[in-house]
């Protein structure tokens, strides 16, 4: 629907449901606007008989083509026909992720297959994951731009009914595979800013602060100063104070502020209110040995799901919104990869079964990417657990949701296998 259409719709609302004089007289402007919006939504919903699918920039999204079938014309057969096209696997600790044929996910028919995990279920067209090795696919271009919101979705089920480890987490995000970068696409390092309070007298006692930020998802970030505040008051007081601020990390639930001054490190404050600033009036704090460190120092284009729980006997759709940090310096990035994995190995091998990947800017039902549609060879799979489930569940409206914190994930049930 174009903007013009929306305007027309609003006009239709005005003509189809006129507000009564009493409504106009007694209603607040907000209420009348809301009524108007509701009517627009009703008409919009009524008109939206066909829900659009989301866009998909991934290749071999259904895990149905071998490398041979996807990229060779004519096909050559052999081991290359037992490599999953465009899906690679690497150790979680790998940083510069190789994209050689040897890094592609294999199926058991490959001559080099040695209980690989993840592996490719070439019969059904699925990726099976049961270790901490990660599954990756290079993106065809630099899809993750600063501030953009990406939607990733896939289906998942369990190979057996053995429960997953209790503390298992799932993560997915965009990896900067540029030599020298080799990390999750991230924003700039989180900074603590310290300035003299209003009216404070400048001094010469260099003072430095560090904030450790704990989120409700168990992540821990650190924010540091670029350089200590060299002009900090020599004696801190209610009049001569330093105002310290730190970034509003989404989901933060505790910020612990530390200070380094005159050679002494102190734990200064614990901020639980969500406030992003603190005035240092010179509280003695608690002396500590030094600044503690946290695992993370920047917001990342990465989502972690601490409650990842696919089920045996059912196929669920998992969806996530990946927020690319607005201050991500994309200019130095040469290549981006979609990367996903588990925090721990499953009890049973290959237990998490993944399929129907979709990554794009729009939120909607599954569809293959345009590159998949240009493949001339036949699919490599011979069966599909999701066969007969067309069209794929859209799961929701084609309307794009608002920016997320990187964590929203609706899960939807599909029909039992």
């Amino acid at each position: 629907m174009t903007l013009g259409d929306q305007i027309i719709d609003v006009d239709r609302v005005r003509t189809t449901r006129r507000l009564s004089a009493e409504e106009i007289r007694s209603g607040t402007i907000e209420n009348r606007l809301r009524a108007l919006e509701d009517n627009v939504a009703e008409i919009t919903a009524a008109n939206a008989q066909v829900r659009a699918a989301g866009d998909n920039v991934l290749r071999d999204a259904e895990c149905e083509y071998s490398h041979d079938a996807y990229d060779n014309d004519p096909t050559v057969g052999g081991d290359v026909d037992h490599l999953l096209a465009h899906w690679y696997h690497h150790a979680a600790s790998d940083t510069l992720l190789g994209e050689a044929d040897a890094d592609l996910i294999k199926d058991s028919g490959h001559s080099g297959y040695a209980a690989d995990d993840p592996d490719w279920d070439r019969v059904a067209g699925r990726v099976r994951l049961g270790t901490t090795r990660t599954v990756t696919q290079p993106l065809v271009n630099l899809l993750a731009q600063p501030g953009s919101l990406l939607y990733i979705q896939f289906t998942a089920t369990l190979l057996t009914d053995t429960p997953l480890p209790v503390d298992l987490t799932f993560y997915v995000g965009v990896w900067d595979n540029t030599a020298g970068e080799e990390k999750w696409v991230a924003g700039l390092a989180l900074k603590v800013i310290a300035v003299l309070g209003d009216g404070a007298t400048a001094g010469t006692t260099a003072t430095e602060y560090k904030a450790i930020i704990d989120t409700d998802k168990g992540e821990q970030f650190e924010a540091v100063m670029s350089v200590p505040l060299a002009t900090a008051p020599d004696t801190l007081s209610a009049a001569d104070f330093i105002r310290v601020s730190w970034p509003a990390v989404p989901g933060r639930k505790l910020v612990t502020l530390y200070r380094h001054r005159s050679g002494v490190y102190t734990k200064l404050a614990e901020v639980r209110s969500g406030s992003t600033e603190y005035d240092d009036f010179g509280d003695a704090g608690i002396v500590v040995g030094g600044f503690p460190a946290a695992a993370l120092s920047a917001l990342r284009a990465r989502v972690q799901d601490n409650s990842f729980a696919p089920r045996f006997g059912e196929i669920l759709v998992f969806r996530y919104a990946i927020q690319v940090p607005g201050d991500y310096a994309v200019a130095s990035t040469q290549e981006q990869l979609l990367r996903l994995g588990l925090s721990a190995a499953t009890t049973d091998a290959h237990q998490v079964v993944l399929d129907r990947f979709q990554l794009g800017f729009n939120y909607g039902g599954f569809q293959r990417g345009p590159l998949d549609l240009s493949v001339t060879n036949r699919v490599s799979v011979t069966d599909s657990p999701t066969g007969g489930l067309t069209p794929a569940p859209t799961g929701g409206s084609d309307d794009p949701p608002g920016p997320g914190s990187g964590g929203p994930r609706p899960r939807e049930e599909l029909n039992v296998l």
Partner: protein
Amino acid sequence: MPDPVLLHRLQPVEGFSAVAAALGLSPGMMALGSQNFVPTADGRMRAFPGLGLQAGVAGGTIMFPVTDGYASLGSVGSPGSGSVASHVADSLWYAGSGPLRFNGAALGSLSASSILSFLLRSGGSFALTPYQAGRTAPSAPTVTNRDNVGGLMTGSFAVRATRINSITGGESDASDFTLPFTVIDGKVVISFAGISLDANGQDKWGLYGTKDGRQSAGPAFGLVKYPEVADSALATLYGILRATEVEWNDAMLDYEREAPIDNDPPPALTHVAAIENIVLGFGAFGGTGVVSSKPGFPEAFPDAYYSFLPERPVAVYPRVARGLLLVACAGSLHAVVYTGAEPPYAIQSIWPETGIAAHHNLCFAENVIYAFTEARGICRSQGAGEPDYSFANEVAEYTSAWTAANVVVGYDVPTQHVVFCHGSEILSYNKRTGKWGAPIKLSQLRSGGAALNLNGTVKACVTFRRKLYLSVLTGGVYALYRYSEGGGGSRAIYQSGWMQAASASETVTQLKLAVEGSWNRAATVEVFADGDETAAVETFNVSAKTGGSRLRHLDAMGPNVRCAQSVALRVTVDSDDGSEGVLDALISGEPSGVVI
């Protein structure tokens, strides 16, 4: 020898005047050199009864009346700043710096900071686990739809969640929307697995859902059947951890309760106050910002509720008087009044060009503001007009050398004294009679008849249950004393002004004194001549009296002060109960008869 004629008559009941050259002073005034005589409500001047030490409690750097008691911030080693206010259910809100005390007793090891915090009260005591005002929006929960289970939901929806502290009632901003989901004849399982409670007392989650079809744009409204869910009630449902199952349709949304997006935590603050049903924070945004909570939601500080003072506040007086809160800056004084609009308060300038240097430079005495201003000294409010300095003319010269930051102003209701303390002395002003008292010297107090040098300085004060409490730095602690308590009395001195001889000179030969009070201790009466206060010409010892507190006519004294061009009188009495007063002094003798 002729009978002596009356030369001078003194009735020192009109108060104290500190003019340096006390010649020509009204015979009803006490002159410079007087001490420890205070003006009483009946129009007399009586000896100061002393200070009553409050054992087992301590004061602070700054003190405030709160709820049914008083609070303080600061200790000797950690000076306090900021303010303490009471709000709903006697909760105690504080921001600033320094250790926190209530009714003189330490509240655990709690100290104020720029993070607005509060304590809840149960019975007569405060829980010592503070809450910080505000809480952050949680990460969005996980939702899993359950189709075809006979539920009420059919359509596309999204959910938002909030954090709730059911004890304080505080609620956070709503989380981001979950990604949209579609349900067919079903329900939805909302899971907080992997999302922990905050560290600020949260125990519940608030749930908000959209209407069908508004899954992307919202807004989300409260679920009528499931307005909130206790974290303890979350369970594993259908294999989903920490979950609760809900269902709604458009008719089951509470359209009066939209998912909050303006329950923001307060920024860093220097002061806090409360009026009506809002909490106000001061010192935000570089120092001049003022922010308030939503009415009835003391932990929610919307961005839209900001305004600014012309300069950062020096002090905030958190007890409402005349329907307003006072906010004092270095160069101006303002009132904050409740409006209930948006924002729910308004700032009005009271004294646009007159401010104070420190928190205790100002107090409210009933409906009048009394203050000590830098450079201009003591003043008070007079209606809506400019500050009135004239009432303090008698002491203006005396206080001109005071350091404003060290002046403590307070009000004692029983005596109706507005006191102006500086270091180890106190000037009292009786607001009923309009009279000033002679300086109260902390070094000249008495205990059991013996000298008691308090050797301290007044740092703060507070009016509690109508009585004034003084926080006196002495012996390395902030000892707390009750004003005019009869703690042992004081050495009171009445010093008259100089009385010039009507003729060329005069000879004083008789002195008669009428006094009142107990006079349980010995006293001295000295006569000075010719402007020399360093050495008395005559000194008379007056023995202690018995017989209770009453009018007394002391035995007539026979000085022999010859050819004096001026005379002055000094009466020194060690009071032990604050009843002593000098009512009348008749100075008689013989004038020279020579008129120049």
